[in-house]
């Protein structure tokens, strides 16, 4: 693989490193993450404004709805709508949780937000807490990025010291305690209810839903969970209004989105673009296909989303609805680029192995099914495939998807179906000839 030629960006970055559309990552150079820098960029203005003006919470939620900000964690659920599910007039404890357990292969945007612009998340969470009448929040940070966790802790200290967190924020009646919490690297703990279990000190195993976290969340209390990027987008919306945010993107697909572009491109990395930006443009920002090779396929939304053949992808815009039309999903915004040197059987094997390893083991179709998916693909890859194997894989995937407690089952099944659908001949070749169709280049 040519990955060896890639050198990661090291701060300070050139201006506009995240692209000209960047809002969350605007003017981020990798060193200016501290509170003072954030304030210079107009940070905490949104929070100060709503506290000074005593903006009614409903108004903030309405603004969020207008913005059409959709959850950036994968499912794309409208954030404003989710916030409105929190019981009103509830007198007990409510919780706010930020999901920074970024573990989906190909996704690395939340890490950048946390280490280069942590105060945007803190401010976003404080505003969310205000809007939903929540007094305690946690940020659940993935258990493999320790330095990021520590930096976030530092940012919390700064915010507390400056009165942006804690009791009576900025002299108002609003108090909000925010804490960092780290996991231990299990992918499944990114699933919101597994995350809650994990925070409660239990085994990270998804809960059966309903009840949803808004009614039965952390410690059984009403809880709202959003992704890091979702929260990071909130200050901009408060500062500029929901309408303006919406206009950055397309109807029903408001704002900007950070895409983690990886794979066979010249400059893999995070790029923040307006929703609806053509894929071709994003590819160009990432320096285009590595060595000018041909785009064979692209997984546009993280490893759990269906793969899209290159030609279809080149015509596609980068927003929820367009990608759905192309037969995949925007998911977490991880764009995995595969050129024509990639063996699709091996690629799928790598994905299948991931889900097989990461299944929590709770429900039969996923626990047993991911194992058999992996093992059957493995035997195809190793020239031991049987003629009936492709149908077997398909029927297995069919009977996993939509039959499990959480969406990890879907995540494991969807790639299988899409890979076989679009690259069946490659799989068949493996079975028939016991070797790869794609010549090995590197």
């Amino acid at each position, binding site marked *: 693989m040519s990955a060896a030629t890639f050198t990661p960006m090291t701060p300070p970055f050139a201006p506009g490193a995240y692209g000209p559309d960047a809002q969350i990552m605007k003017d981020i150079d990798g060193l200016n993450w501290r509170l003072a820098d954030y304030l210079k960029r107009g940070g905490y203005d949104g929070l100060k404004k709503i506290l000074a003006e005593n903006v009614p919470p409903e108004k903030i939620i309405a603004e969020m709805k207008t913005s059409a900000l959709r959850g950036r964690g994968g499912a794309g659920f409208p954030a404003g709508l989710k916030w409105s599910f929190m019981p009103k007039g509830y007198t007990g404890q409510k919780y706010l949780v930020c999901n920074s357990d970024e573990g989906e292969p190909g996704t690395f945007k939340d890490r950048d937000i946390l280490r280069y612009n942590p105060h945007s998340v803190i401010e976003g969470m404080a505003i969310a807490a205000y809007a939903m009448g929540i007094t305690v929040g946690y940020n659940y940070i993935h258990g493999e990025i320790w330095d990021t966790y520590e930096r976030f802790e530092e940012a919390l200290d700064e915010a507390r010291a400056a009165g942006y967190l804690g009791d009576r924020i900025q002299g108002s009646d609003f108090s909000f305690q925010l804490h960092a919490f780290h996991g231990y690297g*299990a992918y*499944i703990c990114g699933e919101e209810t597994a995350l809650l279990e994990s925070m409660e000190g239990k*085994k990270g*195993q998804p809960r*059966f839903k309903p009840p949803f976290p808004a009614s039965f969340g952390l410690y059984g209390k009403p809880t709202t969970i959003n992704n890091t990027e979702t929260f990071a987008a909130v200050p901009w919306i408060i500062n500029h209004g929901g309408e303006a945010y919406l206009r950055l993107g397309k109807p029903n697909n408001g704002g900007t989105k950070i895409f983690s572009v990886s794979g066979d491109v010249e400059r893999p990395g995070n790029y923040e673009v307006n929703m609806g930006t053509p894929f071709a443009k994003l590819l160009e920002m990432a320096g285009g296909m590595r060595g000018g090779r041909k785009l064979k396929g692209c997984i546009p939304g993280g490893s759990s989303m269906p793969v899209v053949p290159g030609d279809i992808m080149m015509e596609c815009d980068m927003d929820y609805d367009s990608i759905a039309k192309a037969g995949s999903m925007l998911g977490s915004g991880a764009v995995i680029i595969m050129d024509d040197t990639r063996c699709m059987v091996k690629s799928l094997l790598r994905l299948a192995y991931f889900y*097989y*390893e*990461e*299944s*929590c*083991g*709770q*429900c*039969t*179709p996923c*626990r*047993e*099914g*991911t*194992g*058999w998916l992996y*093992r*059957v693909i493995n*035997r195809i890859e190793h020239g031991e495939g049987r003629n*009936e194997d492709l149908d*077997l894989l398909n*029927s*297995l995937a*069919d*009977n996993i*998807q*939509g*039959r*499990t*407690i959480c969406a990890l089952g879907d995540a494991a099944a969807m790639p299988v179906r899409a890979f076989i659908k679009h690259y069946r001949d490659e799989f068949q070749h493996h079975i028939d000839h016991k070797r790869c169709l794609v010549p090995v280049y590197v």
Partner: protein
Amino acid sequence: MNSMSEPLADRVAVEFKLDGRTVTGYADETLIETADRLGVEIPRLCHMPGLRPDGNCRACVVEIKGERVLAPSCCRNPQPGMEVQSASERARASQKMVLELLLSDMPETHYTRNSELDRWAAALEVGKPRFAATALRREQPAPDLSHHAIAVNLDACIQCTRCLRACREEQVNDVIGYAFRGEHSKIVFDFDDPMGQSTCVACGECVQACPTGALMPARDAALAVPDKTVDSVCPYCGVGCQLTYNIKDNEILYVQGRDGPSNHGRLCVKGRYGFDYVHHKHRLTKPLIRRAGIPKTAGFTIDPDHVHELFREATWEEALDLAAGGLRKIRDTAGPKALAGFGSAKGSNEEAYLFQKLVRTGFRSNNVDHCTRLCHASSVAALLEGIGSGAVSNQVNDVAHSEVIVVIGSNPVVNHPVAATWIKNAVKKGASLVLIDPRRSELARHATHYLQFKADTDVALLNAMMHTIVHEGLVNEDFIASRTIGYEELKKNVDGYSPEAMAPVCGIPAATIRTVARLYATSKASIILWGMGISQHVHGTDNARCLIALAMMTGQVGRPGTGLHPLRGQNNVQGASDSGLIPMMYPDYKRVDNAEAQARFEKLWGTKLDPQPGLTVVEVMNAAIAGKVRGMYVMGENPALSDPDLNHAREALASLDWLVVQDIFLTETAYLADVVLPASAFPEKTGSFTNTDRMVQLGRRALDMPGDARQDLWIIQEMARRLGLDWKYAGADSGVAEVFDEMRHAMASIGGHHLGAAGAGKFGDLSLRTRRRSRPAGRVHRSLPDADRAREVRPRRHHPRQRTAGRRLSDGADHRAATGTLAYRRDDAAVQRARRDRTRARGLAASARPGADGRRARRGDHGRVAPGPHHAVCPCRRRHAGRRGVHPVLLLRSGGEPADQSGARSLRQDSGVQVLRGAHHRRRRTGRGDEFRWGAVARGRLIPPAKTPGKT
């Protein structure tokens, strides 16, 4: 469990479509439950009635019109208009895929005959799994055979977590966990310890829950095909769990829990695995006669292997003639009062009844008693005095409706394990548990407040609680005004017992006492359960009085989840007393010195009866030493091991001229016998038993007796014949049905029961077959009932005699319920004796008072009202057709206990229930031998059961 705790609101019917036909479900049931009711078969593996639905196996998915994904029918409730397809192509494909995936990893070996996985796979015609490539199979854990009763073969595990839920959520033993991830997921015990070394208490609930045989009775006991299964009850404690024996070649292979009102399928280690005593090699199989010249001495050690040096074997004819002849001689020479008989709280109602009848009509005295005298007598005395009934106010599992549960002086986790599960379940659902006990028991782990007070300072502590309630204005004024008398005196009395003053006495901080008192008084429903820790004191009656006063002053009685429950120890404590194994009472607590009662029983039994109350257990022993009692007949009791002063008891028994012992083992008492009659163990006979909840249930014969052993009922009748009695009880199982039939005529309390057609040899399920007329089941709990108010209480229609409901207590002693004084137990024998005399005198005085006679003391006499709201539907949460939803069993509560059982003393008890507080060594008797000591179970370890040789 679920069915127990849901509110009783009327169920909302929901019309929806299931597989094309319009059906009616309920909003609070799941689709799979509706389907089950209607006979529509949906495969399922992780679903099990009684366990929380977990929805993990996905074998039960169904297609719902308009929904993108399939839904697990075990977790979905029907909605109006919903269209559900349980066998559509899509649903079936998914169901089959689940089964196929699971089958792929199944081992070749079969650990059970009833794998639910195999059954569903066959039903859905899932052939050989396509994934069964052995090379690709996942690694499976090695067998774990470290447990004595349970074999763990996790290669057959399908990760359904039924065992986990049974262990954690049903039994709340918290042993089983689900560890690791993905395909390495594994059922573990504690920290992945071998099961035998884990904290498992061997309740076996996980085994009962396992669908694939991954958890099974050890040594393949359940692989053999039973010849028959017999539905019965557990012979151990007062909870009275229903169970099923699986029998092969006249041996119990294994036991399963059955859905009874008190256990709903649950069992504990005793009921499930404690049956091998029946097959023990030391069982008596031949009548034994003491060899001439072998002396009887109090000092002896039992040596079961050298029995023949003391006794010789004899025929039944010879042994019975000799046994009865010896007794007859004493009766005819020294007079009826020179004989006494001890029955047993472990025998059936019929045995108890017939035994007391034999003593009363054959010995012609009332010298008949049994071990209950030593356990809850003090509780009963206080209850009779305080509320007019010595029995429990409601069944244990009513705790599901309690907000606060107080457990004092009781260790139910060990002594009433299944009762404890209901308590733990309630706590898990949010009830507060207040555990008050000097000895920390397992329940403390679940307690909201654990008060480890100084031993023997109950009265100080409870008075301090009452002080708080009075002084903080937490009393229930209405209840006190309308239902009690004597409150002012109580109020005055507790004045001196502020929590601050009592804290140094009882060792509990005043603030804690106050907190707990407030909690109890102000909750919507508080219940108190207690055991021997309250009753077995020199001032046990005072302890119980305090508890009653607490309930009365706060009105925590008479509603769902409130009340008073003295947990009964042995399996038939209640029934043996009901049936008249009491020296001063005929069956149903009719006093022997009551002319009317006497006349009635004389007529019934066709003979003259002694109007004088007989001697109690302890008095008999004293009388034997004094030479007044010369001969005894002991059935199923072992006073030489279980009486308070062993040397004294053994000397007494050894000094007898003639002792006949009827038992299944050569007990310490039998060692001193002249004739030993080999009797039947619990599963070898049929009879009815009354549990702590006062439900009458049927134990059925499951086994033949070993050797020449005979059923107790037969032996009693043969003895009776030789004492000159002309009895005729024909029919199967020694005429048990006819005995019961006679009891029905003698005892109004069971008048409506039928024990199956007499002689037919087939017995219906007693607790479910009652034909008792509907009788108000709600009860007014009155502390010191006010006579004026009592008149307002509705009379019971069928019992006009009881119109004057409510007992009036008129002298100073009555207010003792409220005025429990600080009393410290002394070991000084003289003090004890003085106390005993005083208590006894009080008891007699009470019984002599008008309105306090035996008739009044009977159940129901304190007045009843129409069914309270909580009994409008049965607490067992089942619907019972044609009975306005009232559980037939509830109508069956049998009689209260005698008014003058007030000889409350610090005594060790013979029941294996719980021993004197402080001493706390348990001695569990199973059956009637002392072979089995389950005490070790309390520490979470099972002593290896004596392996029965040749068991398959």
